């Protein structure tokens, strides 16, 4: 299993441009999450999904959109990029369910985004 994969690894955007950060997991996890990590800080939840077709906002959703059409994929869309969106973005997945009290979240390698 590859686990959680993210593309691209690095990206530089100009103010006002748009892009999609890709996230794929091959563990058949139903829960998926997007976080951002600003320098020297902890992670903040942007959006999450409890299954295909179901998404909801996290702590810092403004300026982002998500969709979840399949169990495996959870792309994050940035419309009209702003310097405040310069950050490292992590995708994670988990499988809460019977016999899984730990519900550990598994993280992807991250995408480092700079908006100039």
């Amino acid at each position, binding site marked *: 299993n590859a686990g959680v994969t993210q593309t691209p690894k690095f990206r530089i955007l100009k103010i006002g441009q748009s892009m999609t950060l890709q996230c794929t997991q091959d563990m058949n996890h139903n829960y998926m999450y997007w976080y951002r990590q600003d320098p020297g800080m902890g992670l*903040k939840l942007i959006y999450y999904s409890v299954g295909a077709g179901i998404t909801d906002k996290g702590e810092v959703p403004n300026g982002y959109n998500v969709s979840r059409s399949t169990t495996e994929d959870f792309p994050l869309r940035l419309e009209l990029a702003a310097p405040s969106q310069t950050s490292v973005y992590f995708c994670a997945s988990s499988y809460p369910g019977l016999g899984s009290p730990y519900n550990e979240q598994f993280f992807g390698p991250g995408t480092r985004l700079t908006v100039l």
Partner: protein
Amino acid sequence: ELKVEQNPLFLSMQEGKNYTIYCNYSTTSDRLYWYRQDPGKSLESLFVLLSNGAVKQEGRLMASLDTKARLSTLHITAAVHDLSATYFCAVVFNFGNEKLTFGTGTRLTIIP
């Protein structure tokens, strides 16, 4: 407000010494995670603590949970350079959606 606070934020310690990182959280939770992050890398799960009094150990690291005090500790015994990293605690406050609230992290540097 759902808050998770860690202290210290920065910790520089000599090899061979013992120290403790503290994680306080603002409201009831029965599940707490500890993660490790090396510079420029992703997060690696260390421990999951499920109930009051839970204690888990892996090598030189030991984590404990006191749900009544809303406090978890990560104790480092006889530190070695390889333990240099940033350590985060994270709490699930709402079991329906499994959202994690992270602390700001403790940057640990082990000096030879």
